[in-house]
């Protein structure tokens, strides 16, 4: 059977991609579009390393079939920085020492970005709730909490 043609708009760019029905959105974006920033940590939606926005909703793209995202707007980690400038969330992760091995970080940054869109002024507990789908094994999360709270402050312009 021939592959299926689907349309994806990824980070503002339109793509027509030929996919097999069993390919995940993550695999498709990484292998067919060459956007390898999103990572596969578990393949079962349990670690969050593959988090992307699909039509404005944060999803674990390792368990979303690419065919199910046909026609969708996708934002990946590669879509966050603008004109070479880091997004405030990314900047805060760098400055607060929230990055160690870095493998969870693309997903973690996407989750933090999504959280701050929905809640620009989160409490520590709201940050902990908002990132609960993203596992990090290196940092113990402390500096990630600090980074997200600092990014929120910067984005609010306090």
């Amino acid at each position: 059977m021939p592959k299926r043609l689907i349309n994806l708009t990824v980070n503002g760019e339109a793509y027509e991609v030929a996919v097999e029905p069993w390919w995940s959105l993550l695999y498709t974006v990484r292998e067919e579009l060459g956007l390898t920033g999103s990572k596969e940590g578990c393949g079962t939606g349990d670690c969050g390393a593959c988090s992307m926005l699909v039509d404005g909703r944060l999803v674990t793209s390792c368990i979303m079939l690419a065919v199910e995202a046909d026609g969708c707007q996708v934002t990946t980690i590669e879509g966050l920085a603008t004109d070479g400038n880091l997004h405030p969330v990314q900047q805060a992760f760098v400055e607060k020492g929230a990055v160690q091995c870095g493998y969870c970080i693309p997903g973690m940054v996407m989750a933090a970005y999504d959280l701050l869109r929905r809640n620009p002024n989160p409490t520590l507990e709201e940050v902990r709730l908002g990132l609960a789908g993203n596992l990090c094994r290196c940092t113990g999360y402390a500096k990630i909490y600090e980074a997200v709270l600092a990014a929120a402050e910067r984005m609010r312009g306090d």
Partner: protein
Amino acid sequence: MARETLERTGFRHVGRPVDRIDATGKVTGETPYGDDLRFPRLLHAKLVHAPVAHARIRRIDVSKALAVPGVEAVVTAADLPSHRINPDVRQQTLLARDEVLFYGQPVAAVLARDPYAAAHARDLVEVEYEELPAVVDPLEAMREDSPLARTSAIQEADRSEEQGHITIEAEQEQAQSRPSNVSSTITFKRGDIEAGFAEADAVVEGTWRSAMVHQSYIEPHVTIADYDANGELTIWSSTQAPFHVRHEVARTLGLPDARVRVVATEVGGGFGGKIYLYEALVGALAIHARRPVKLAMSRKEDMLAATPAPQAVVQLKAGMKADGTLVALQARVIYDSGAFPGAPVLPGCLLIGGSYKCPNLDIEGFEVLTNKVSVGALRAPGAPHVAFALESAMDMLAQRLELDPLEVRLKNAVEKGDPLPSGQPYPAIGLKECLEAIARTEIWQQRHQTRQRPNRGVGVAVGGWLGGLQPASATVGLNADGTVNVTVGAADITGTNTTFAQIAAEELNLPLSMVSVVTGDTKTAPYAGMTAGSKTTYTVGRAVKLAAEDARQQILAIASQRLEVPAEELEMEDGVVRAKGQPEKQVTFAELGRLTTGFGARYAPIVGRGAITARRQAPGFSAQVAEVEVDPDTGEVTVLRYAVAQDVGFAINPKSVEGQMQGGAAQGLGIALSEEMVYDERGRLLNPNLLDYRLPTTRDVPPIEAIIVEVPSEEGPYGARIVGEPSIVPGPAAVANAVADAVGARIFEVPITPERVLRALGKLQD
């Protein structure tokens, strides 16, 4: 965050918090990890994992798998070179040949053009097994009438992973005369144990159990190999130990080291679990296929068939005098090594008698083989298991004698000169200073108020690690524009390359922006030991410092000639060398760069060389305090506040040091509360996924307070000592002690699940 720190004056870079030099690539997703690399004509490997724990392989039928479109080959042990295969060593076994020794052991490899085809075909490989009795429980395995976990006795045990983490000489007795599942034993004795107990006013004893846990780096193992027409094998691997991998792969595949190039790709978390595993197998597959081959493990495969940390049973009896003096420690420490030797019995036995002065010791250690996946290193391998027992016992003794648990620890804490159970004396260490730092935390200061609230409690515990020792080397070169390149051979996981940039910038008095650091591959980089055993800054950092000093001397020598000023009358700052008191006499690094690299250059290039060997350890201790709330009806334990104090000698980059301490402490909380690989009675892993293997989430881990303590080491750069490992050690005991403080129930098994809390409270009968 608070620090009990050394003076920072006199330093420009070291000792100050800096951003990681590689952080931007990581937050943008640009940094490539192994699975992000692209290779033309790549074949994807998927392994057939045995669905039984112990069996003879009767027959393998690959015909259906080969028929799957996209499949290029299905490889079994029969297709691989057999002459160097060593069935005693996991990594040299490659694929199971006759006997399957653990559930998940690779029996065949499917090579296909895309990973989906490989995975599909893998499921179609038919293997006929004749099941043998599976040995699952380590205590049962030790019984004389137990079936054997393997039909042939162990001749040669590979302990390189352990030695990479903790380098110490002690006698470990190998393979016994009679066939047995006990693959090695260790004994340490000091004084007269019976006299010690006779002298004690309080004696406590118990059996403490720790579950098998997985390193659970978020990036599963990934290895790519390519064998070229010149007979050179290149391996890209998310390994912590490129030079070790090179040598082992070369040995196993019968190649000279010089024909093997190992490129350590960015490591997406290792924690001891990514030393060396499938590189030789993937190399063999690439040689077989004559095409690049990638093995990217799924999470399930990684949980089935990597090298997790052992289950342990620690029987401990301890005696203390009424004044709080510890007088006797008797321990029997049993580690379940899985199907191959390599369990951390030695560190366990050293450390159970290594935190406190105690005149009478009787410690026995056993490494037991079972039909489970063979174990490897996990951050301070073996240490959390024994600290759980020892630190619980210390609290029990303190309670029995109505003494303050922190005071009791301070009273007995080891100091410089005190011997380990092996007799080796400690160098300068900071255990007492860590305890004093914890005593000053709000959590500890407010413990009496905390206890007034129902079901809340506070617990303290300590733990340490000795560290690994390996030689290291580094080069520091001056570029044509005056910037500086540092080249090392150690994989950077925790930010060590940033630390090296600080060191080189410090020694050359440069802005950090003028220094770049690269980890080369094994063909280009100066040798370094594995990034394990908390030793990278301690050893490679020293080499970088020496290399920078060497470069500095070379720069001064040329500048001296150019300026006609003796070298000792020169100073350097921000890439300018000038005569002291005569600022007009100066030459820039950029000029020196041109003079040493240009066409017809007058001088040879500046290449500073640093090479060291490390023979003395710089042990690190950590003290931690937990405040918990226990729901006495559901058994749920919530960690409300947590603090970690650790002696790091000298924090070259406090930001990354704190991150290491917090990360290790959080892993300790995982061991304490939720992580457990669960095997059934037939040796099958029941939870090979991150849903039922429960890593702590953000909801489970409060913001951990990190308190840096600095008791300088004797040899480390600027006094730095080991950092990575000690922070994982005290967590299980600190939480258990806090739970006991909160609800009066002493838990003897981690993880401290709600069910175990309820059982300890007597609320679950059946």
